């Protein structure tokens, strides 16, 4: 219908002047109605319209009561009267004439008469009785059209009491040869069943006949009745299941005439009706459900066209599958279906997806988890309807862990919602449950805002009253139940509400409420805080005789309480209950909520304070000052632990600076919020203070990953493949400019869907990857080329002792320095990396009798024998040295080999090699002397670096004029633009004194930077997690048409950064510092410069990286 030509009212005057309208030549011209309509459209004010209509009505009234008016004219008058009624003007005088027209008119007038009756009257109108005879007559007419008209009006409205009069006639019509009559008769009976079920009880078997009617229309009509019957009594119709299944099978299989197709889907209305019936029949009934599995499967399969009608059927199928006895195969398909709905860009389908989720979520909470990001998006949807449905869904998955967040969201919704009905529904339905589910775990501000909502109310007084009454009613019934099970916070809310509003319910005796409240006081589980709320409520309530006596009893008990607050309240209660006048003054009733004037400066206390100060009291310190002092004290004691704690990616928790909402969410979730940690020593800090470190930058919020499951969840959910796919999909539709909102959603998701998984909260999606650490080095695959040799070297480095000796023997025997099967590298005579180390340890360590005790040095002799005196050579050149690089490093780029130190016999050089997950320092030791050096010890140390060596610093020996190579793996301990290593080398000739020398090696931090591949969403998640940042405007590469892309590609090439995404004027880039410390970069074109913002969990890293970025861009 989208091709309907839009003819708006603006075109009306022109069209009205035409005598005949296009496309409506078969319509009779009703010129008076035409005049009326034209007259109305020409008017400008409501007042004028009123006048015109009144005039019109007067004229109609005159004419209808005139005996000279023909039925033909009457018909016209009726149409005009209907029109006036539609405009909202009453024309009740014409009702009787409408009946008369139906009675006396011939076919065409009768038709209008019936129409007017059905529009003017409703089924309880007394004039309808006058229609009964007309209907009776027409039902018996030989004119089919008249029978149809009568049945049509009966199907819409008929006086209940008169049903017996026409029932036999209608029943008779079930056998009529014309299907249209049979169909209308069935619907008339359906109407009778609805308004007077017992009147049609005896004809249930006739319904079966209608169900078996050869005309699909009649059969479809009969399903309305069956749906109703089965809804009321599913047990009575189980035997029909097979029939319904057969019908559905035939429909789905396309056995119906093409007429019933709707957009090439066979009889969708019929299908849906059948599905609803099956749903009712199969509920809680395994054997009946089994009958329908096959046809349900087929329905799902057949519904493939992308059209609303298909989705309507699918939706009904899904509902059915989730209602009947479950079958996993079908459930799986249905879940997929729901997924399609939820992920659909069409808002109507999305809504239905949410509705379906709401329907199934209690059975299958995992389904909500799968779609958590969509749900979060829907929560912020501009359409309130979507939002509302999402809240409904959340309401269903409320548990003790997520109740805070959900209630927050609901309150947020209530604040913006204008529709009172929804508000009452939502507040009423959710609050009680929410309070009782998670009462005590909530933050105190939630009940507070609820009470505020209740007391301040909405725009409408009436709605306020309804909501309050609702609250009073439901709370009284809760207290009459088992109040002991309710959380304390909820009891407090109940007390307040009853104290304030129980007077709204007139039939509720005050002393009933008082007794209920007193019962709370007697319960052992009631906390004293709650008790004071209860006493307050009682104070408000105790009025009149019975109340006073209850109050007296209570106040006597509690005026001797040990709790001072309770005692105070009890005293108040006692006094106020005995002095009605005072009470009326202190607690005036029915005043509503007038703003109280509060002296926030507490000036009335000035006198007291100065007296106290004069008496020597300490001056008041505001809480933050006290806390700061406390925090400082604490920082000292924590300092020594700081350095020893490992700094890993996942250890940095949310130290958010951007989103306050996020903070409250995370705090609600974990119970020890980080915003508190910023403030300093709060109680929550003390709780996990051991894991916190007072660093140079302030508090470094650090946690051990395993202990903070809540924070691990975020990345783990992030990486679920399905989730990823979805997120990517949505991203393509709405490119996010900055990743921040994305992150918020992730955070929100993790807090909303906590506790929904089957058991562990760490693995929300049920399919998180085995490694929880995002930045763990990739597991080295043995198949990769570099991996292979590494494995070998590893096995050589630390083999079990037996192998070790075997190797040694082997070496001794053959005098070859390597195993035969270790490919090309061992052909080179000098010992390579691992082999050198391994050889060193068995070749040379043994003779080192100083250390190991004296043993006849077989090997030493051997080595001596093997010593191959050669003429003195120049130390190998760079090029030559590089050939000594261990094989697995030789393919990688290495820095220039720089000399470190040299003395008469040893020349040390070094270079570093960048591996993907590592930075390797290679030290070349050239023995320039003629004699062999048995033992060389290298010690490396650095303030900024962690140095690990596979050979424990013992390089082993080097024969004369040969090169020994030593590898160290480096990682950054503390970032600095340049990091320096200081080393000592010590060695000893077989004869002679120990020698030693010192050296240093400097390398830029950029060597430790590696690209970090992640998605925009992950980037977003991490961005806010990082606490250290720096911002600077850098030079832009301006000679390129795309300066941002060009600049980023320079950075990428020079510094090995990973460009995550470029969105318009902004780019996001990620890298990591070895081993696993991420640093994120956000670039934006700003006034001809590149505004760079770097963030990382590692202090100083952003600054260092900024330096390198600056250099890289300047050098370009």
């Amino acid at each position, binding site marked *: 219908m989208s091709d309907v030509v839009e*003819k708006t009212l603006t075109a009306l005057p022109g069209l009205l002047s035409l005598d005949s309208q296009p496309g409506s030549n078969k319509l009779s011209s009703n010129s008076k109605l035409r005049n009326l309509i034209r007259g109305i459209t020409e008017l400008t004010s409501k007042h004028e319209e009123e006048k015109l209509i009144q005039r019109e009505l007067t004229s109609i009234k005159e004419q209808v009561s005139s005996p000279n008016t023909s039925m033909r004219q009457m018909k016209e008058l009726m149409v005009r009267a209907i029109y006036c009624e539609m405009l909202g003007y009453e024309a009740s005088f014409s009702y009787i004439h409408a009946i008369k027209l139906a009675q006396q008119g011939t*076919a065409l007038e009768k038709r209008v008469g019936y129409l007017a009756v059905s529009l003017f009257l409703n*089924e309880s109108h007394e004039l309808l009785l006058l229609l009964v005879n007309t209907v009776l007559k027409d039902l018996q007419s030989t004119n089919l059209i008249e029978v149809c008209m009568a049945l049509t009006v009966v199907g819409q409205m008929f006086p209940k009491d008169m049903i017996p009069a026409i029932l036999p006639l209608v029943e008779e019509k079930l056998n009529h040869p014309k299907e249209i009559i049979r169909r209308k008769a069935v619907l008339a009976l359906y109407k009778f069943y609805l308004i007077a079920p017992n009147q049609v009880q005896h004809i249930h078997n006739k319904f079966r006949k209608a169900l078996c009617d050869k005309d699909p229309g009649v059969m479809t009509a009969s399903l309305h009745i069956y749906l109703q019957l089965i809804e009321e009594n599913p047990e009575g119709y189980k035997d029909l299941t097979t029939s319904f299944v057969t019908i559905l099978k035939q429909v789905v299989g396309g056995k119906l005439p093409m007429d019933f197709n709707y957009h090439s889907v066979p009889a969708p209305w019929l299908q849906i009706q059948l599905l609803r019936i099956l749903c009712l029949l199969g509920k809680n009934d395994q054997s009946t459900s089994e009958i329908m599995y096959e046809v349900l499967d087929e329905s799902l399969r057949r519904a493939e066209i992308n059209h609303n009608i298909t989705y309507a059927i699918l939706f009904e199928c899904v509902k059915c599958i989730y209602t009947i006895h479950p079958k996993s195969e079908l459930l799986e398909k249905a879940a997929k279906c729901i997924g399609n709905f939820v992920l659909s860009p069409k808002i109507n389908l999305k809504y239905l997806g949410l509705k379906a989720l709401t329907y199934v979520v209690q059975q299958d909470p995992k389904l909500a988890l799968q779609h958590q990001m969509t749900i979060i998006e829907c929560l912020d949807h501009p*359409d309130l*309807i979507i939002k509302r449905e999402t809240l409904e869904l959340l309401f269903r998955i409320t548990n003790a862990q997520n109740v805070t967040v959900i209630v927050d969201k609901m309150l947020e919704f209530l604040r913006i919602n204008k529709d009172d009905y929804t508000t009452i529904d939502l507040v009423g339905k959710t609050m009680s449950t929410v309070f009782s589910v998670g009462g005590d775990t909530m933050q105190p501000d939630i009940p507070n805002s609820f009470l505020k909502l209740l007391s301040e109310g909405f725009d409408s007084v009436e709605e306020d009253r309804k909501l309050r009454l609702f609250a009073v009613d439901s709370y009284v019934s809760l207290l009459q139940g088992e109040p002991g099970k309710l959380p304390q916070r909820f009891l407090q809310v109940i007390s307040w509400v009853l104290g304030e509003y129980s007077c709204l319910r007139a039939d509720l005796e005050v002393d009933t409420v008082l007794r209920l409240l007193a019962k709370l006081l007697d319960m052992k589980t009631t906390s004293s805080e709650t008790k004071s709320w209860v006493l307050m409520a009682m104070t408000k309530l105790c009025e009149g005789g019975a109340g006073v006596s209850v109050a007296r009893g209570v106040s006597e008990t509690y005026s001797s309480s040990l709790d001072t607050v309770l005692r105070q309240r009890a005293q108040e209660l006692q006094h106020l209950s005995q002095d009605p006048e005072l009470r009326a003054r202190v607690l005036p009733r029915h005043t509503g909520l007038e703003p109280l004037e509060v002296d926030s400066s507490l000036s009335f206390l000035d006198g007291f304070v100065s007296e106290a100060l004069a008496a020597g009291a300490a001056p008041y310190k505001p809480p933050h000052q006290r806390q700061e002092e406390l925090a400082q004290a604490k920082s000292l004691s924590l300092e020594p632990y700081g350095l020893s704690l490992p700094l890993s990616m996942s250890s940095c928790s949310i130290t958010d600076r951007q989103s306050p909402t996020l903070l409250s969410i995370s705090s609600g979730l974990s119970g020890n919020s980080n915003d508190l940690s910023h403030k300093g020593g709060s109680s929550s800090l003390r709780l996990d203070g051991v894991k916190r470190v007072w660093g140079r930058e302030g508090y470094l919020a650090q946690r051990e990953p395993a202990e903070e499951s809540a924070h691990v969840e975020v990345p783990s959910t992030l990486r679920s493949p399905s989730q990823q796919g979805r997120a990517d999909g949505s991203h393509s539709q709405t490119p996010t400019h900055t990743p921040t909102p994305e992150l918020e959603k992730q955070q929100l998701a993790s807090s909303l869907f906590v506790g929904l998984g089957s058991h562990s909260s760490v693995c929300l999606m049920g399919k998180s990857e085995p490694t929880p650490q995002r930045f763990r080095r990739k597991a080295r695959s043995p198949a990769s080329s570099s991996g292979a040799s590494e494995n070998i070297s590893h096995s050589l480095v630390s083999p079990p002792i037996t192998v070790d000796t075997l190797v040694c023997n082997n070496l001794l025997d053959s005098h070859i320095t390597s195993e035969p099967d270790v490919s090309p590298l061992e052909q080179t005579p000098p010992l390579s990396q691992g082999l050198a180390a391994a050889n060193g340890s068995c070749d040379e360590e043994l003779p080192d009798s100083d250390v190991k005790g004296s043993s006849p040095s077989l090997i030493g002799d051997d080595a001596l024998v093997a010593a191959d005196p050669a003429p003195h050579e120049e130390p190998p050149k760079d090029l030559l040295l590089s050939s000594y690089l261990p094989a697995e490093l030789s393919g990688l780029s290495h820095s220039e080999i720089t000399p470190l130190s040299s003395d008469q016999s040893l020349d040390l050089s070094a270079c570093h090699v960048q591996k993907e997950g590592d930075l390797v320092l290679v030290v070349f030791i050239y023995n320039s002397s003629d004699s062999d050096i048995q033992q060389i010890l290298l010690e490396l140390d650095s303030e900024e670096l962690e140095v690990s060596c596979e050979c424990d610093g013992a390089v082993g020996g080097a024969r004369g004029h040969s090169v020994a190579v030593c590898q160290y793996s480096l990682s950054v301990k503390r970032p600095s633009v340049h990091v320096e290593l200081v080393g000592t080398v010590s060695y000893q000739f077989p004869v002679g004194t120990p020698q030693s020398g010192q050296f240093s090696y400097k390398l830029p931090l950029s060597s430790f930077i590696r690209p970090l591949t992640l998605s925009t969403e992950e980037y977003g998640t991490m961005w806010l997690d990082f606490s250290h940042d720096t911002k600077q405007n850098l030079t832009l590469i301006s000679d390129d048409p795309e300066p941002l892309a060009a600049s980023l590609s320079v950075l990428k090439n020079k510094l090995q950064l990973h460009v995550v995404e470029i969105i318009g004027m902004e780019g996001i880039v990620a890298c990591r510092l070895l081993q696993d410390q991420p640093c994120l970069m956000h670039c934006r074109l700003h006034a001809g410069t590149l505004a760079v913002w770097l963030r990382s969990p590692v202090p100083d890293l952003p600054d260092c990286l900024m330096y390198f970025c600056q250099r890289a861009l300047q050098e370009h």
Partner: protein
Amino acid sequence: MQFMLLFSRQGKLRLQKWYVPLSDKERKKISRDLVQTILARKPKMCSFLEWRDLKIVYKRYASLYFCCAVEDQDNELITLEIIHRYVELLDKYFGSVCELDIIFNFEKAYFILDEFLLGGEAQETSKKNVLKAIEQADLLQEEAEVPRSVLEEIGLT
């Protein structure tokens, strides 16, 4: 279905059909509220509304809004298609229907609706059958009408 309303972009009611007994006052209040609510909604928004305890399904065709109220457990999408089928029927009957057709021949629109929905339930979903029923009734009307209108014209003018 509880009721169906057709109204223009200006908020003028063009057709109303109530399938539940309601007083005149209630009807007026409901239609006023709903017209306001729906006109305030943006075009990209969801076609479904939760309104009181009812589900409102509406769709705009050119300058006309079609709006149905169904119960919460009813299928919203099929209701949307009921609207669409009704529009199809109107379109077929009037031949490229427009708002004016419905304004001037609203009683025909009612007749079509009554053949399609009866007592709030889909009565006949086959387009052909609905139109056949209407045509037959119209035929009767025209047969009766032709001689009469001649007579009338003589008698009246």
